[in-house]
């Protein structure tokens, strides 16, 4: 199935996009400030017939925001209302990028595996299709290649769009994607071999451009990062970078691999509800226990904790570092703490053995 390619003209893609809105809640990227030096894309559920915007790179929001919400009811108890999982809508997300898909492996690991499956997450996941796209440009902060993530999706999508001439090469990535395409087959034609070759050339071209952008940065590699954070545990790096941290938790909340949440309780008329809130390990009370003891008392410890979780815990438990190089945390940080720079500082001070 991965070798099935179609072609869709831009005008037809718009028709397809509008048609899908009849059966799905469709989110797609929009540009709020077209004059910005570097465009930002935001996901929106557009009700009108405005044309689909193809985003050159990932959106501002993390992909996780479609599957867990910053604040949401996860269950009620004792006096039962309706099953919360009944209210999940069929959804399509356009504009998903390769880094998003990679980052989302972490969310899937947390919520779909382990001792229990989170049924609300699973239901949303099962009812959501990704129509992803190749990156055709990158932001200054983008550094996917440093983590061996390519700027075009290779898996984890339902359909993928690669811009070519006045249309798009469409790659089918799943059975659901194939079904969706077959239901709307009037918009698609078979792709020619020359078009598929054209896609490859465009992809390679972007990879070369991105490499040129990253090479002077001397970024840390995937293979050494666990060793760096382990051996660098007691270095002054954490203290130095902590100085500008204002504990806003922005890096956590916008990160597509950060998944921490807090369960809380509230009363809604006669019903008791359990709500789930995204939590952030940079918050002062993140690890506090009853009575006031706090294993992550200082900002330095909390900043380090974020790195240990991503580059030690997940390497041990899932075999991959929990970073996709999307650079969202770099953009969001009011203290200008740059994950690339923190790791580079460790690399300067730690002697890597392998």
């Amino acid at each position, binding site marked *: 199935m991965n070798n099935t390619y179609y072609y869709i003209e831009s005008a037809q893609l718009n028709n397809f996009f509008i048609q899908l809105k009849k059966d799905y809640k469709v989110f797609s990227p929009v540009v709020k400030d077209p004059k910005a030096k570097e465009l930002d894309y935001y996901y929106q559920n557009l009700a009108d017939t405005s044309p689909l915007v193809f985003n050159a790179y990932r959106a501002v929001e993390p992909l996780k925001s479609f599957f867990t919400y910053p604040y949401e009811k996860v269950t009620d*108890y004792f006096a039962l209302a309706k099953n919360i999982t009944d209210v999940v809508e069929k959804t399509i997300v356009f504009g998903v990028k390769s880094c998003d898909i990679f980052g989302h492996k972490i969310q899937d690991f947390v919520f779909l595996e382990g001792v229990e499956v989170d049924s609300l997450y699973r239901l949303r996941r099962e009812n959501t299709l990704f129509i992803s796209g190749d990156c055709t440009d990158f932001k200054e902060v983008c550094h996917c290649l440093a983590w061996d993530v390519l700027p075009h999706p290779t898996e984890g999508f339902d359909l993928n769009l690669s811009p070519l001439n006045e249309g798009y090469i469409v790659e089918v990535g799943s059975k659901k994607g194939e079904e969706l395409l077959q239901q709307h087959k009037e918009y698609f034609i078979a792709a020619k071999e020359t078009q598929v070759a054209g896609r490859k050339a465009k992809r390679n071209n972007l990879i070369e451009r991105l490499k040129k952008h990253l090479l002077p940065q001397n970024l840390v590699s995937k293979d050494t990062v666990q060793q760096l954070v382990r051996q660098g545990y007691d270095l002054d790096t954490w203290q130095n970078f902590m100085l500008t941290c204002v504990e806003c938790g922005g890096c956590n909340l916008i990160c597509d691999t950060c*998944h921490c949440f807090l369960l809380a309780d509230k009363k809604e008329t006669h019903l008791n509800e359990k709500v789930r809130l995204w939590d952030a390990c940079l918050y002062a009370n993140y690890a506090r226990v009853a009575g006031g003891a706090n294993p992550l008392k200082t900002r330095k410890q909390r900043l380090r904790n974020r790195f240990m979780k991503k580059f*030690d815990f997940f390497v041990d438990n899932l075999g991959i570092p929990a970073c996709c190089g999307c650079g969202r945390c770099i953009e969001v940080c009011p203290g200008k703490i740059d994950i690339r720079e923190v790791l580079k500082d460790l690399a300067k001070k730690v002697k890597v053995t392998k």
Partner: protein
Amino acid sequence: MKDIYRPVEATIEDIIVESTTIKTFILRPKEVLEFKTGQFIELTLPGVGEAPFTPSSDPNIKDKIDVTIMNVGRVTSLLHGLSKNISLGIRGPYGKGYPLDEFAGKDILIVGGGVGLAPLRSLLFSLFATIDKFNKVVLRYGARTPSDIIYKNAISEWAKKKKVDIVTTVDVGDPTWKGNVGLVTTILKDLPVDLNKAVAVVCGPPIMMKFATLKLLDLGFKPRDIYLSMEKNMSCGLGKCGHCRIGRYYACKDGPVFTHEQLKDMHDIWD
């Protein structure tokens, strides 16, 4: 579809005052809720909040669960204000319990501090239920003052049992106290255990656990034979919310009982 965050309703059947700051709540869940000793539950005060506790009752009693709670925080202080017949919520049980099978045939040294005796009481009940399987049960318990000792009557009953050896101490005595005075580490000497077939179980405040563990290592216990109940702020109980991470583990699903062997190379485990 399984609703993993929904608590089971449980009525407070009785409340026992253990000390000025500690009460035991005897709960009757509306659904059968079986647990293994050492596993923990999340106890919900409806509409207000929840907190993790390890039951203090005998796991062989299926219709009731005791939870011994010290008044230290927001949820626990509200729980202490409750009276009988009120409904609470229980999620769980979560985590791995004490590995009783691995304790078979051994001398089991149990070191408790303060309210840390709560989970250990559940462990003691489990051990007593099949005492033939074990060689000996040795309890060393410390509390801050004589009035902070919990399960006073039970302790003197247990001391009469065969194969059971109990010594208690308090950090600070009072005029009526005739027993030992000193930290729990001061009664970790001349232990009637055979180090070749002994395990130690430690539960109490982090600072007490740290020094008890160091003392046990000093005495010759091997890291793999020291079992520690780690206090972390478990929220979901299912290894998803992230709060209770200890190195590569989550206390909620990989613990809350760990061997010292598992944790000894990790940073800041006692904080």
